């Protein structure tokens, strides 16, 4: 829980100089390209490119996020080599694809500030209501996280230690319930405050990042790279 704010925290690196819209679209195109690759060579190349980007751009905390992905893949793939002929090859293919996309998303999108992410989505044409909800939710996550940490501290001060028993689950149930009760009053205050400031359902995107020349260069480079991957895959088939 404590790491929530640090998980969201973007780190300055060469990639943060690039337009968020480019990074979002590049991640999506990379996902589309990668799932269509069929050959080990090109798949490994895609995974290595993604890993290289993450190494060169992101902080070390980003790698820890991959643990969740690996645990899901473990359950999904562990039976494949045992039950299907040629299952090992299928499992390795899927593992490479999932990791390449996951790592690329962490490198390109995970390094964004959450608010930048929302604004980039808005400028890419995502419905305004959805973006408003996203941006408001990000802000509220910060605030409710602090509320949550206060409640957890109160529990710890009363010597609460989570274990695998009924007492823990009930205490956590009350914790979630209390969080919801506080959210109810918080939502009333938020709506009042926003109406007071003339909120009528519009989001003004203040982020006015300009498309730079080095964005075009990166876009062209990535396009070349992605089409190279597809072409090689086609050729090896």
């Amino acid at each position, binding site marked *: *829980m404590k790491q*929530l704010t640090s*998980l969201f925290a973007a780190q300055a690196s060469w990639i943060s100089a690039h337009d968020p819209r480019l990074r979002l679209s590049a*991640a999506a195109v990379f*996902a589309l390209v990668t*799932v269509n690759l069929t050959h080990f060579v090109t798949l490994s190349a895609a995974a290595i490119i993604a890993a290289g980007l993450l190494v060169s751009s992101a902080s070390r905390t*980003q790698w820890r*996020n*991959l643990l*969740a*992905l690996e645990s*899901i*893949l473990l359950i*999904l*793939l*562990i*039976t*494949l080599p045992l*039950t299907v002929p040629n299952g090992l090859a299928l499992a390795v*293919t*899927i593992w490479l694809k*999932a990791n390449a*996309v996951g790592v690329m998303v962490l490198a390109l999108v*995970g390094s*964004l500030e*959450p608010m930048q992410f929302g604004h980039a989505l808005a400028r890419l044409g995502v419905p305004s*209501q*959805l973006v408003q*909800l996203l941006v*408001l*939710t*990000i*802000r*509220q*996550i910060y*605030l409710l996280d602090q509320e*949550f940490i206060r409640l957890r501290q109160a529990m710890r001060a009363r010597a609460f230690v*989570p274990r*695998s028993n009924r007492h823990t*689950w*009930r205490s*956590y*149930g*009350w*914790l*979630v*319930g*209390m*969080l*919801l*009760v506080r959210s*109810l009053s918080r*939502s*009333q*205050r938020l*709506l*009042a405050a*926003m109406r007071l400031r003339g*909120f009528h*359902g519009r989001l003004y995107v203040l982020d006015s990042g300009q498309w730079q020349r080095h964005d075009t260069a990166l876009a062209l480079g990535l396009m070349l790279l992605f089409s190279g991957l597809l072409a090689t895959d086609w050729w090896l088939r």
Partner: protein
Amino acid sequence: MAHLPDGVLSAPVLIGGGVIAAGVLTIALRQLDDQRLPPAAVFAAAFFVSSLITIPIGPSSAHLLLNGLMGLLLGWTAIPALFVALLLQTAFFGYGGVLALGVNTVNMAVPALLCAGVLTPWLRRVAPHRVFWVGASAGMMGVMLTGGLVALSLILSNAAFRPAAGLVLLSYLPLALVEAVMTGTVLAFLQRVAPELLESSQPPDLKSPQPPFFKGGL
């Protein structure tokens, strides 16, 4: 657990999931006017934060899905709230794939809607001391339906995933039991502390044209 990565699902499943998710989201967003938007964001955030709690289950641990409870408390608003949470988890935590976002949304959102549809009438007429069981059913239904849909999207993608789908469904069972206890407790707690949260499938102040802060709650 409910977040399928990219590279696993087949194109028809991905496209089908994307279309259904877009349809359901469009319907849900149409009902979310500017009065309901800020409260929806607060509750979306509350559920997001709650789902980060690490619950010990035996030797391992798990995170709650909470989609059953969200459906029960928020109704249609649960859909965009779930979608936003999934989007953030995909973008910043690396859970779930980019192309699989539609399928993952459907797998979480459809059980939430079903819980809202089936359990809300029961919640209306249940005796106060039995509210726990409504919440427990919501937790159980939400998790097991999600597990079933995850397994279904795996089987529809590739017949080779049949054993894996069974394993996935099996791994959802302990979570379903713990989540049932938790959501039951949450609902019983809310029933005593803030019964207005349970009165309608949307928190009541989201519905009234004159928000209650005029009545001196502030």
